[in-house]
């Protein structure tokens, strides 16, 4: 039973560029949440998707957008990258929102 799969694992981008991160949730899960984790910090909630809709959003600018597909997989897009966007981006899936999350291994994004 595959867990949460994220791609790519590492990424280096230049300021001002755009990036798309991908996530396949654990089999049987229908809800995907995205988190940003800076070094030494706790994960910060970006947004959550359920039934292909953004259900809730954290305190992130509109440069951060996402999508959920009919097969429950999800993408996180970040436009106009800033140096401060460098972080580990974690995707977490769950069955509905009120159960424990299964996290992927994350995408390490470095903006130079």
């Amino acid at each position, binding site marked *: 039973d595959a867990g949460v799969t994220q791609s790519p694992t590492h990424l280096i981008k230049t300021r001002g560029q755009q990036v798309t991160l991908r996530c396949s949730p654990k089999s049987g899960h229908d809800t995907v*949440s995205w*988190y940003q984790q800076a070094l030494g*910090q*706790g*994960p*910060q*909630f970006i947004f*959550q998707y*359920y039934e292909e809709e953004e*259900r*809730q959003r*954290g*305190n992130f600018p509109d440069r951060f957008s996402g999508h959920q597909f009919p097969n429950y997989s999800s993408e996180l897009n970040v436009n106009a990258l800033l140096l401060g966007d460098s972080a580990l981006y*974690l995707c*977490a899936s769950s069955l509905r*929102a*009120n*159960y*424990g*999350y*299964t*996290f*992927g*291994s*994350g995408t390490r994004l470095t903006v130079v």
Partner: protein
Amino acid sequence: GQQVMQIPQYQHVQEGEDFTTYCNSSTTLSNIQWYKQRPGGHPVFLIQLVKSGEVKKQKRLTFQFGEAKKNSSLHITATQTTDVGTYFCAGRKGGSEKLVFGKGTKLTVNP
């Protein structure tokens, strides 16, 4: 906005000693979850607490949810080197889909 605070930020113990991390929320929570993140890894779900005053045990780990549903604790008895990692609490307000994480407590264990 909703905040979840954890103390201590760091804890270093000798193997065999006990360890406790505390979590406090600025608002009443509908539930609280605990996660463990090993160095270089990703958060792994440990447990969810839902009821006021709830206590749950997993082997050497004991989790508590406060009566007011605003605080929680994780206690590890007789730590082992395999317990090394950062322990996060994460809380959710009623009616909200957002799971808010604390900054975590980093545990190191000296063999």
